[in-house]
């Protein structure tokens, strides 16, 4: 038993383990960051999976045709944002139900990305370059973890810090949260509720598109239809898990990535722990955290936007 525990701990604290977890968690963090902003403005966009897979298809197409990861990433962001624009037109412009529209967006994205990506299946690209700082990247243990990642990883952290600063340290962030908590009052105070929500939804789409582009550009450098394999849904769940707070989102994404990879690695050790038990761990952890949050009051509790998912039609 102790020996088994020792082996598992040895696994968790190895450099390769941490490197793989970072790669596995980055798309979740990117997609969830964008969705967090959209939901904080009061819009529930369930189409993350659809926006992600469009980002993956267009990102790969862009990178393949231009032979540039950066152009690929930009194509991914634009594709995600374009999908979000369709969603915004329907839910904000025509006040259509957000849940139904989000689900439709996922179905649309899955089909459309297959069509766009059809010609690129089986093609190969050069994966995104990883940072190399002479002297620093070669440092033992921390070198490759801190100074040897690709741009997406650094971007995901810059993004989450930026989102935190924006939401809690700027006036615009305060207004966005106000819109999400009570759109009628925000409207009465003269804030352009729909315009703010439009921007938040587009931002969310861009992030989802970038997260999708990360998959064929850095994670597994090829495009296959359906390659997001449900990561958009996990990103949605992470926003709830994080109780709409950016700090907890990072913890949630990395916890999920780590537990998922741990369950794969432990199997290789041949310790006889049932894989079914291990694969249920991420979800068990989610439930425990949600129970703890619901029992906590005050600042530590959930920051669920009060107007989340509620359609807003301004009176003239």
């Amino acid at each position: 038993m102790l020996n088994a525990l020792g082996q598992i701990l040895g696994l968790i604290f190895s450099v390769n383990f941490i490197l793989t977890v970072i790669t596995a968690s980055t798309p979740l963090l990117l997609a969830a960051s964008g969705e967090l902003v959209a939901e904080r403005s009061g819009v529930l966009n369930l189409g993350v999976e659809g926006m992600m897979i469009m980002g993956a298809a267009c990102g790969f197409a862009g990178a393949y045709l231009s032979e540039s990861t950066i152009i690929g990433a930009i194509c991914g962001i634009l594709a995600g944002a374009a999908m979000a624009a369709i969603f915004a037109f329907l839910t904000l412009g025509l006040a259509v139900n957000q849940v139904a529209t989000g689900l439709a967006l996922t179905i649309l994205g899955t089909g459309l990305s297959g069509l766009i990506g059809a010609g690129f299946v089986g093609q190969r690209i050069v994966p995104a370059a990883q940072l190399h700082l002479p002297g620093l990247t070669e440092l033992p243990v921390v070198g490759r973890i801190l100074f040897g990642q690709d741009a997406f990883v650094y971007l995901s952290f810059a993004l989450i810090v930026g989102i935190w600063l924006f939401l809690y340290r700027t006036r615009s962030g305060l207004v966005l949260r106000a819109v999400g908590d009570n759109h009628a009052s925000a409207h009465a105070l003269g804030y352009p509720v729909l315009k703010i929500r439009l921007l938040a939804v587009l931002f969310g789409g861009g992030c989802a598109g970038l997260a999708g582009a990360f998959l064929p550009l850095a994670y597994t450098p090829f495009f296959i239809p359906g390659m997001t394999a449900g990561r958009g849904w996990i990103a949605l769940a992470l926003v709830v898990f994080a109780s709409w707070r950016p700090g907890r989102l990072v913890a949630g994404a990395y916890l999920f990535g780590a537990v998922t990879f741990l369950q794969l690695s432990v199997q290789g050790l041949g310790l006889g722990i049932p894989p079914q038990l291990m694969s249920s761990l991420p979800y068990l952890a989610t439930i425990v955290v949600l129970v703890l949050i619901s029992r906590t009051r005050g600042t530590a509790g959930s920051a669920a936007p009060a107007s989340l998912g509620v359609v807003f039609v301004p009176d003239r």
Partner: protein
Amino acid sequence: MKNRIVVVAAAAIFAVAAATLAAPAAEKLKVGFVYLGPVGDFGWTYQHEVGRQGLVKALGDKIDTTYLENVNEGPDSERSIEQLARTGHKLIFTTSFGYMDPTIKVASRFPKVDFEHATGFKRATNVSTYSGRFYEGRYIQGMIAAKMSKTGVLGYIVSFPIPEVISGINATMLGAQTVNPNIKVKIIWVSTWFDPGKEADAAKALADQGADVLMQHTDSPAAMQIAAQRGLLAFGQDSDMIKFGPKTQLTAIVDNWAPYYVQRTKDVLDGTWKSTDTWGGLTSTLVVMAPYTNMPDDVKKMAMDTEAAIKAGTLHPFKCPIVDQDGNTVPCKGDGHLDDGQILSMNFYVKGVDDKIPGK
């Protein structure tokens, strides 16, 4: 009188119109396919799609084909199969193990439609089953892997503990043990047929733990790519994945469905279709090995000799005695080897596999 002529004329015109409308549908046989993954998965579903295209090429003037992709196993699939049956398809191929019960159910409601279910074991008067003896290829792969591995540890990424997967692991080990009796295999269950990210993660975990030849029973080429990145060797699955690892792929088990699809469709056209159970391997070319690459000549020769012996029937991967993980000898029901029933329902590991079958 005049009225009657009008009525007769109208009826005649209607009949002619109906006949012309119905005629093309009656002439061309509609053949439907239900796929588990996207046609571009470069694995299982892709090979069935290659088979369908081969069918269109051979009999395109006599048939129309339809396929439904990304059909989940379970209730979803029953709806999809029924939809094909309702829309006039007279021959329907359902191409994944999990479609077994839905296929049987729909078949009982459409007795005039013929069904073909891949990799299952339930049949009816209008339901045939067909599959490949993939374990024959796995045995050859096991031998190659044991020859090529420097660490003596193989990495095996698997989906679900169904008999086909278990028999694949066993055949690999039996082949490997003929070369190196102390060979080890590390097994990771990813609980999905298709998730490139997860398959890549599993490949990384195996590489981290010292495996230097990777093989898989999942559908995407992600593991092949990781092996290429890490300078390891790997086997392609279902289709030739050499594109994803020109210096990595040793060989691949390629599913070659087209000849079977053509034959069965011809049978329906001729009215001679009967419910059967087809299980073809290297001999019937339902299973084909991709070119042996990235290995020295002696290993290549060993692989080719083994392939020839299996084809000639002088070598059976599951030749008796077979000893299970716990040291018990498995009863030998076939002629000097396990019989097909034992292989098709395999739920034990052979000696030397250091893993537990999930849920057992």
